[in-house]
């Protein structure tokens, strides 16, 4: 998208204004935006950019940024750059700085919502629970053919 003001450079600032009962969005390049007194977006390619930059500052040493996740080989510096983690293990590998970031983003670090239960029961129990749940859903969604089949399998 090109800048709506100069029509030459790439628009990087997308300014939504509400004025005289009209909501408008203006797309401007960095220079034209600056001329209108609009700050360009914070450093970094993602909305997390400023957060991450702040964390980088508090982190201090480059060493901490260079440590690699044993799961995927991504470093914390990679995360700072992209705003995206490499794999689930990154959450353990960079637990301390991530806890700090999560607290700033969400005001808490402890998940209190639904917990994922994948293991803990035997395979047979899980299968039976699952069949029962599917039967319940099948009845609820009026999928009676499937319900009959599931009921037969439960009886076996």
């Amino acid at each position, binding site marked *: 998208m090109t800048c709506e003001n100069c029509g030459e450079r790439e628009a990087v600032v997308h300014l939504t204004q*509400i004025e005289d009962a009209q909501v408008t969005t203006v797309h401007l390049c960095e220079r034209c935006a600056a001329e209108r007194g609009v700050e360009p977006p914070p450093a970094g390619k993602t909305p997390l950019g400023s957060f991450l930059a702040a964390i980088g500052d508090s982190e201090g040493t480059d060493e901490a940024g260079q440590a690699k996740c044993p799961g995927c080989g991504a470093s914390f510096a990679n995360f700072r750059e992209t705003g*995206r983690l490499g794999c*689930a293990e990154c959450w353990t590998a960079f637990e301390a700085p991530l806890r700090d970031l999560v607290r700033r983003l969400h005001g808490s670090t402890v*998940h*209190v919502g639904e917990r*994922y239960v994948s293991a803990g029961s035997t395979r047979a129990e899980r299968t039976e629970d699952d069949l029962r749940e599917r039967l319940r859903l099948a009845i609820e969604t009026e999928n009676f053919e499937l319900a009959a089949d599931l009921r037969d399998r439960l009886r076996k």
Partner: protein
Amino acid sequence: MIDLSLMADGGMGWLDASGPESHLVLSTRIRLARNLAGYPFQGRSGDAERERILREVEAAARDTVLLGRAVTFRLDRLDEADRQLLHERHLVSKELAGLDPGARVRYGAALLHQDRIGVMLNEEDHLRLQGLCSGFALAATYAEVDRLDGELGRRLGFAFHQEFGYLTACPTNVGTGLRASVLIHLPGLVLTKEVSRVLQGLAQVGLTFRGLYGEGSEVVGNFFQLSNQTTLGKSEGELLDHLARVVRQVIEYEEQARQVLLQSAPTVIEDKVWRAYGLLRYARNLSFDEAMNLLSGVRLGVGLGLIPGIGMYTLNKLLIQSQPAHLAVAENLPLGDPALALRRAALVRRVLEDDVERRG
């Protein structure tokens, strides 16, 4: 070309204006972000891994009740107009459809869809479970998505951390992985110039707003998507309750603003909504933005009882069908063809004319 007839309602059941508060709230959408344990996240996985993720989830879904009959759309095998069409239908994100400037559709990007729910695959997270219902229906929409989460979770291994909850590629989604949004029409607040105050207030209570197409999209036709900003530290129920309370408040503000308009400037408002109707009824050339703004005016007129007889469903259909990719596909024209503005005007005239004839 994409065959949307594979979906019973074309994936547009949410348009039928049957849900609660549907004169103001178009739709309720809830998504849960989930990742498979044992695979790198999206940014660090290759094509082979994306393909395996897709197959694994498809196989698991086939065995479920809620997605057992799902249709799979491989976004990576669709042309741009079809991908945009799915996006305009609010079934896939801009990212999944590869519509961001300079972006390409990612290998393995896919949508599984059945009735009102679906899963986006190989989006920013491996799975984005989503539910879309008509009107203001947070509890009902969540109930469906939650059931799907249970069904898929028992068949797949999700990445979960004892402290942080469901793990996501971006820390803004970690915990519940839940983003609930309500698409609401607020012309009264825009006309009374109260909307910026209300929207600023949202940020103070941990909510955020976006445009018609979600993240990074512009506000058109006075439609706003209100959604939760944080995903961790509160349970799913608390997040939904909080959003519901605030949306109810915004609905109340909007109703008050409409009353203020009716009382302080009745003739101005009446003229405004009928002008909008007149233009839609007779214009020969309509850009998408103009159509959206005029439809917003007519919607307001119908809501205020000033324009009798037009159904919200008709207006919702026009809203969807006059979008660029919908028109391009229906009219067999390339995206961005200047003739689309003429076809759009013709479509709107035809639908409104039929509406008048139907009512006699």
